[in-house]
């Protein structure tokens, strides 16, 4: 049986923890708003890029001209590159582990098929998790800890790295792993194939392209040259979008994790206080009995 002092200490420590988790929740909520607005601000660029690219790709594939390899792929799928984006910090529920789990399953499946897997880790946490199993496969680890908010520059840096590896013939297929932000309580780990580029026109964009009359376009310098410069840019934009979604997801996950932690702490305090009060009362009763029985004995 714990003494009263022990109980008091325990309650005080839970209270202190609750204060921390509460503060973390509020910080996450503020950061989430910022991350969400950043993700929203970046959306028009990605959308327009997709429209332009699908227009271009549709126009090019009609001609018999040679297509860039980024669009068609190398015609092989022996070596796979996985770009796994996670957070730099923990304490955000299952956020990091669910992305890592998806990546791990993907990698295991590819390895079972006898394919070569190469991994680029973006973010410390994913690297920590994947390192245990795939230390041989990890070729690079990108640390974004020094940046408070991810900008396009960092995404472009990762994009350039991927393209450089692709140009050197280091891999055939690239997949991007990140967490899509659905809502504060739901983040969906997603795998997105980035090379060969997925530019299959969607229903909506096709209509937009149709009334533009893409065959009338004048291209300067040439359609191939534009497509060639646009595809790497599109890759960077995709990485950028993934990083922004990840940032929003991370804060959302942290917010809900800290919310439940705060609630748990509250419950624990209630339980401990009850035990404390009972123990205290029992002690008082015991003391009273001692006094009374002492008086009676006289």
């Amino acid at each position, binding site marked *: 049986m714990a003494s009263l002092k022990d109980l008091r200490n325990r309650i005080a420590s839970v209270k202190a923890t609750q204060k921390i988790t509460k503060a973390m929740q509020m910080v996450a909520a503020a950061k989430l708003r910022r991350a969400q607005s950043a993700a929203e601000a970046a959306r028009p660029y990605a959308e327009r890029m997709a429209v*332009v690219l699908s227009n271009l790709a549709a126009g090019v594939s009609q001609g018999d001209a040679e297509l860039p390899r980024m669009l068609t792929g190398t015609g092989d799928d022996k070596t796979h590159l996985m770009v796994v984006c996670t957070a730099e910090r923990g304490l955000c529920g299952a956020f990091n582990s669910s992305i890592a789990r998806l990546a791990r399953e993907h990698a295991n499946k590819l390895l079972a098929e006898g394919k070569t897997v190469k991994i680029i880790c973006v973010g410390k946490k994913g690297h920590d998790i994947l390192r245990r199993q795939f230390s041989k496969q990890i070729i690079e680890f990108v640390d974004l800890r020094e940046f408070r908010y991810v900008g*396009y520059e960092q995404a472009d840096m990762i994009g350039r790295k991927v393209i450089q590896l692709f140009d050197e013939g280091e891999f055939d297929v690239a997949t991007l792993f990140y967490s899509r932000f659905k809502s504060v309580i739901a983040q969906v780990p997603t795998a997105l194939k980035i090379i060969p580029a997925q530019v299959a026109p969607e229903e909506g964009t096709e209509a937009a392209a149709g009334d533009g009359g893409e065959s009338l376009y004048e291209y300067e*310098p040439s359609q191939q040259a534009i497509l060639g410069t646009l595809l790497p840019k599109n890759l960077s934009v995709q990485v950028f979008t993934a990083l922004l979604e990840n940032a929003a997801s991370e804060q959302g996950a942290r917010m809900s994790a800290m919310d439940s932690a705060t609630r748990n702490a509250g419950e624990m305090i209630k339980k401990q206080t009850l035990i404390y009060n009972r123990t205290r009362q029992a002690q008082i009763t015991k003391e009273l009995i001692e006094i009374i029985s002492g008086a009676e004995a006289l």
Partner: protein
Amino acid sequence: MATFHFELVAPERILYSGEVEAVELPATEGDMTVLAGHAPAMTTLQTGFLVVGEGSGKGKRILIQGGFADIGPKGATILAERATPLEELTAQSLEEEILRVRTTADAKDEGPEKEALKAAIHKLEEAKATLRA
């Protein structure tokens, strides 16, 4: 004068959206001006100033560093890799930028890529001179 819809989108935000009379673009094949009713065209952009003409002599200058223009029948959209409005430019940030581009250029072998970077440095230095004036 007739106007058309113009949008300038940077990766992080939309920088300009509205009806304009004319837009001067630093295209890779040379500067070009887009007026209302321009033939549909797509072109890549290099480093340089984009000039938006809002009519009656009013205008805006925005420094573009690489990007892409999509001129359609309904309007023009520019996807700029990096864009900074003239108001946000400072001599110091420009100098840092020149240094950054120069170090990338120095690391490259001779070729069209290096030429493009050299042209970019030239443009940035021009921009710095304009800013000082």
